[in-house]
């Protein structure tokens, strides 16, 4: 290439680059301190009208204040838009971390809302979903009296490497969306309310079937769900009549068969526990037995709830995918789930007895 043509090339490139800048440029350019980044959104529906509460951390000199903004309207986007016009900075839902539904609304059905969240690209599909079983107004009011200058306190509660605990169900928007579309996969989402000593009080979890809250689980049952799904039940303390143990690890194996159109599922959950507290001196055999019995009864109660609500929160249908045709799978919840024959065996291993020798 001659240097002349080279020069021309450069001029061409520079010109075309320069053209884009004065042509308005910077369409999305809005500095972070001019954006409000709500991290919690509470949604309630009363008399067909949505009520949205946003919790926005407001960075100020030194500390972060929490601001709670409310709005009412016919659609959620409309409300957010209204709030945004009234605020001094633009509302950006990009950093939304938690969406709280009032339990009444959850029972009515979350389908449309979840779908619109999935559709909107400014809301991450990773947003956690939870149900609040007290009115949103009082929830946010109580939250705010605690930890006034810690903007992310609600998040830590759900974050795996922070305050999360196996008794709390974990569910995000995409998981709820999947359960709405999937034939064999439902979810449970945590139920919380504002606490008295702690910020939040966990109230177990809600069974979501086809986008509606159809039942609820106790914290203890939620633990089994988490263990069954294979996410660890580590660190959970189980209290029994004679002893308290801490679960160190859990492992699950499933076996499935299909006989005469009746699905059979045999599961084996191995728990490794350590002794924390004993009353009197129960034998190890005793403790093992007691742990298994306790968990067994919880498991049975979950299965009962599943069959009653037709919501497969343990995703048991997944194991029978190869046994059923696609059309049959589509009717898993109605035709097969109620007939599901579930057996579970809890194998408890007392890994150690703490620093004391077992007397």
């Amino acid at each position: 290439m001659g240097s002349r043509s080279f020069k021309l090339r450069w001029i061409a490139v520079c010109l075309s680059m320069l053209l884009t800048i004065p042509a308005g440029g910077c369409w999305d350019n809005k500095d972070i301190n001019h954006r409000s980044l709500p991290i919690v959104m509470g949604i309630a529906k009363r008399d067909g009208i949505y009520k949205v509460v946003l919790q926005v951390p407001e960075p100020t000199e030194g500390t972060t204040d929490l601001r709670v903004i409310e709005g009412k309207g016919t659609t959620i986007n409309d409300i957010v838009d209204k709030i945004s016009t009234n605020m001094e900075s633009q509302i950006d839902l990009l950093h939304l971390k938690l969406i709280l539904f009032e339990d009444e609304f959850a029972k009515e059905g979350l389908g449309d809302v979840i779908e619109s969240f999935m559709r909107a690209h400014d809301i991450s599909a990773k947003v956690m979903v939870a149900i609040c079983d007290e009115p949103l107004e009082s929830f946010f009011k109580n939250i705010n009296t605690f930890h006034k200058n810690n903007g992310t306190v609600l998040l830590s509660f759900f974050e795996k490497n922070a305050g999360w605990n196996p008794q709390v169900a974990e569910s995000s928007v995409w998981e709820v969306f999947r359960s709405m579309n999937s034939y064999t996969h439902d979810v449970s989402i945590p139920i919380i309310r504002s606490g008295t000593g702690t910020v939040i009080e966990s109230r177990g979890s809600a069974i979501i079937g086809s986008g509606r809250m159809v039942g609820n689980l106790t914290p203890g049952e939620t633990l089994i769900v988490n263990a069954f799904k294979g996410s660890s039940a580590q660190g959970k303390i189980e209290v029994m009549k004679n002893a308290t143990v801490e679960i160190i690890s859990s492992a699950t194996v499933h076996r499935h068969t299909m006989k005469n159109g009746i699905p059979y599922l045999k599961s084996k959950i191995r728990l490794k526990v350590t002794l924390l507290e004993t009353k009197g001196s129960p034998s190890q055999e005793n403790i093992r037995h007691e742990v298994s019995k306790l968990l067994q009864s919880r498991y049975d109660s979950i299965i009962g709830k599943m069959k009653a609500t037709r919501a497969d929160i343990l995703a048991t249908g997944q194991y029978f995918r190869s046994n059923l045709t696609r059309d049959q799978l589509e009717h898993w919840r109605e035709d097969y789930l109620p007939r599901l024959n579930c057996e579970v065996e809890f194998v408890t291993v007392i890994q150690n007895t703490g620093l004391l020798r077992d007397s």
Partner: protein
Amino acid sequence: MVKTWQVANLYILTHIGVIFFLYPDNMIQAMEVSHWIGILTGFLLHIIVVWSYIKGLSLFDRRNVVDIFLDAGKWIAFLLLAPVFVYLLAVIVISIRSYGEMITIIFLSSTPLWATMLLTAILAAFLAMQGIEAILRTGLLLLVLCMPPTLFVLFSSFQHVDWHYLLPLFEGGAFQWSFVYNRSFLMGLLAVGGSFVFLGFVQPEVAFNQRYIRYASFLLLPLYGIAVYVPLLTFGHSTASRLMFPFIFVTDIVEVNWLMFERTSLFFTMSMIAFVLLFISLMLWNAAYLVQKVITVRTWSIVWAIAFVLFVICVSIDDWEQLEKLIWWNTFLRLYVMFVIPGVTLTLGLLYKRKGGAAYG
């Protein structure tokens, strides 16, 4: 100069660029179960097409398709290559338009589409005007820069996978190959037969050893598999089929706690866009090369001219539906490029060899 590695690298990267955006969606729409059959079918098509193409090329001593066809006759060459030219232009328009759209959806919600498309067009044209060797070398740089994040995200995308969704492996009419006539499947061939044509254009400036290209083509199989199966395994078919960009969505929900960034999908999408830019500039260069065989113009001027015209066309496409229509029309051209060009090359090659031309293999 022999640059087998660079050519193989470019071949892989340009495919990666197109595999992860539209292909998963197309495949998921095309079939309900047993997607692996569709993937394998596509891959076998790819292998057959590419292998016969490079076999045909290798029968000539370092010559490109244009020269080979010109030997057969000026008008034959023109008739054979004119559809290729139109195909290239259409592919460029489709890529610029669809990736521009995706960029606005993912990163820049208020930026007008023309701005992102202008950026894409300028970047691609800038690279294309510097010629094939620069494109090859850029491929190497991008490999070094973009491969680590790409691999990282590819591995981490398995985070939410539920292997049960893999089942059932055999079901329904998958083996009747009825999906082959499915519109979505045919549109998905963009990822299968998208960029291989360039292999015939790079010689004699850049030579390559056909054996390594063949090895490289096997690397594509796991990529096709991951692109389709990871969304399926994460969401199940019924959910995945509702998503516009299934794979990108999967990378979006990956949680990596120790990173200072919230979205790992960002790195992935960025790398993919880089590879796509590479792909567009390669196609642009190919198109410019064809023009240069007809009229003598400088590379840079013809590249910018084509880029400008195509940019105008891109701007005039109003919505996604029109774009899908264009992709559909272009599918016929693609089938032509996939089957006729390699076929003719191979036939000419065999004839040439029988006549006792240069006895190179």
